[in-house]
């Protein structure tokens, strides 16, 4: 009896490994490749070895020292990426939180319509909207301005964030609002003193989502911005491939650096990410 049970457990374990190992390999091999390139000297990068004979940090020195034509604005572009991502995260958070609060807690008229429209936006892939967005930004004279990318990313991130936050808000007990109203709270006080503190996990999750979305964005950055000093690093990385003899090892080193902040952020907030994004997914 006991053996049968443990056999079953082993079998489940084996099945999980059977799925897990390929998934890990699938995701990690490119990352390992990236890392391998980044620590290889230029002429040894494509040698096909699992570990370079003379691993070096010289590539990173080149990157940090901006010692290559493609890397002339590395720090500026990293700063652009950071600024765009943080601004997108904060603005999206503001838009989505206030919208969710108004719809879920204040029950404003038309709230349902807003939610339905937010849902409809999912049917349209972001890439479809790239050209119309370009036209719109041109109309407002925002091309070649980092705000155009920020506004575009806020537009893309907001519907999903509103949806997630609305679902999470709906789970807060209604009596809390009523108690606060009787205690004398205005809607704004209710928002700041009761609603926001209780929503922190969801807010962190949603803010991080918007931030990473903007950090990783390529297409819109490529379209809306063209001055080298305005570009986010993602677009600048793409420009490495403009020439025939791309400095692969520098591209990979820069890419590796670029991938670290999202990993760090995700690791720091993973507790919130899981609970925050699933909160409201199912009614408990």
């Amino acid at each position, binding site marked *: 009896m006991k053996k049968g049970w443990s056999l079953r457990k082993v079998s489940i374990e084996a099945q999980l490994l059977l799925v897990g190992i390929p998934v890990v390999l699938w995701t990690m091999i490119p990352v390992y490749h990236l890392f391998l390139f980044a620590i290889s000297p230029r002429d040894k990068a494509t040698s096909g070895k699992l570990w370079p004979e003379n691993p070096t940090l010289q590539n990173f020195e080149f990157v940090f020292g901006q010692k290559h034509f493609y890397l002339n604005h590395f720090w500026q572009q990293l700063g652009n990426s950071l600024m765009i991502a943080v601004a997108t995260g904060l603005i999206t958070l503001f838009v989505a939180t206030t919208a969710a609060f108004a719809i879920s807690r204040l029950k404003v008229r038309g709230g349902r319509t807003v939610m339905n429209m937010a849902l409809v936006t999912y049917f349209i892939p972001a890439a479809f909207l790239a050209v119309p967005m370009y036209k719109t930004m041109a109309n407002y004279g925002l091309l070649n301005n980092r705000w155009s990318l920020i506004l575009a990313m806020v537009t893309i991130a907001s519907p999903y964030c509103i949806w997630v936050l609305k679902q999470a808000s709906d789970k807060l007990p209604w009596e809390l609002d*009523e*108690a606060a109203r009787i205690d004398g709270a205005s809607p704004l006080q209710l928002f700041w003193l009761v609603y926001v503190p209780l929503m922190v996990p969801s807010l962190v999750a949603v803010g991080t989502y918007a931030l990473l979305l903007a950090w990783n964005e390529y297409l819109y950055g490529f379209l809306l911005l063209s001055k080298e000093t305005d570009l986010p690093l993602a677009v600048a990385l793409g420009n490495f491939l403009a020439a025939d003899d791309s400095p692969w090892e520098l591209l990979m080193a820069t890419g590796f650096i670029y991938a670290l902040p999202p990993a760090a952020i995700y690791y720091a907030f993973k507790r919130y990410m899981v609970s925050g994004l699933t909160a409201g997914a199912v009614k408990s």
Partner: protein
Amino acid sequence: MASVSFSNIEKKFGKVKIIHGISFDISDGEFVVLVGPSGCGKSTLLRMLAGLEEITGGEISIDGKVINDLDSKDRDIAMVFQSYALYPHMTVRDNMGFSLKLRKASAEITNKRVGDAASILNLDPLLDRYPRELSGGQRQRVAMGRAIVRDPKVFLFDEPLSNLDAKLRVAMRAEIKALHQRLKTTTVYVTHDQIEAMTMADRIVVMHDGIIEQIGTPLELFDRPGNLFVAQFIGSPSMNVLKGTLRQVEGRAWVESQNHQWPVGTLVRARDGQTVAYGVRPTDMRLSSTGQGIAAKVIVVEPTGAETELLVEVDQTPMVVVMHGRTDAQPDDLVYLEVSAEKSHVFDETSGLRLD
């Protein structure tokens, strides 16, 4: 402290009318319990008084001032919710002081008021804890503390004890009652539990389907229920009711039900031959020792120590008898029931109204 007055209050949700013109007054310092089965409109009525529901028709006034259009916060009321509704991210101290903070009271006043309320409710050692670290009874006391700190004109309680276990409920019942006797603040208390209503209220308002069935002190309702609904709602176990025909012949009156005659007092508003509902409380029947009375077959004997509850059948109609002390009666035994005429209740069969 204040008086409260409901005048012809109506409430509609969409097209459905759930409160049909309710009027009654609560005097200063009174403890009034609204009681009734779920869906009777008692909570809605309370929430209209609290300003959490719009008033469709009629007027509610506090101290003679109509409050229909005032915000909750301007009505000078405090409410205790069934789910406690404590702010989970604030300590007990901050929960209790929240309303004062919103009113920008000085720290000195807030500390004093919170301290006073805490000592009344024995919450001093818990002031720096969070709601999640408290037991159900403690949370309920904090919710009451939050209400006391406000020093409102009227306390509102919405089924505050329903989430507590039976033993704690009895203890909190006494605590709320004691609190009221100490503070003498006008209180409106909603419950579906008639025992809570009976034990705590100065006056009870029995509601059913959006109307008031009867208003009175607990013992008035118990001794002279105005209609069949109140008769069966108030009292536990509930009143035995059977259908029968009223007989009034030569100054003697009784109710004929199947093969038995049930004694009744004098009924001025009734006539001979009228179909009636006859009610008698389980505690108002005795087992006859003389072998006279109404024959009944014992089905179940439930000893509870001080009392014994008997489920019996009279002409296939189940009835409950509660007797003090103990009995030798066994299931399937035949017993005889004695009922005194003064303790009987007779209601019109169609209108359900009391007939004396």
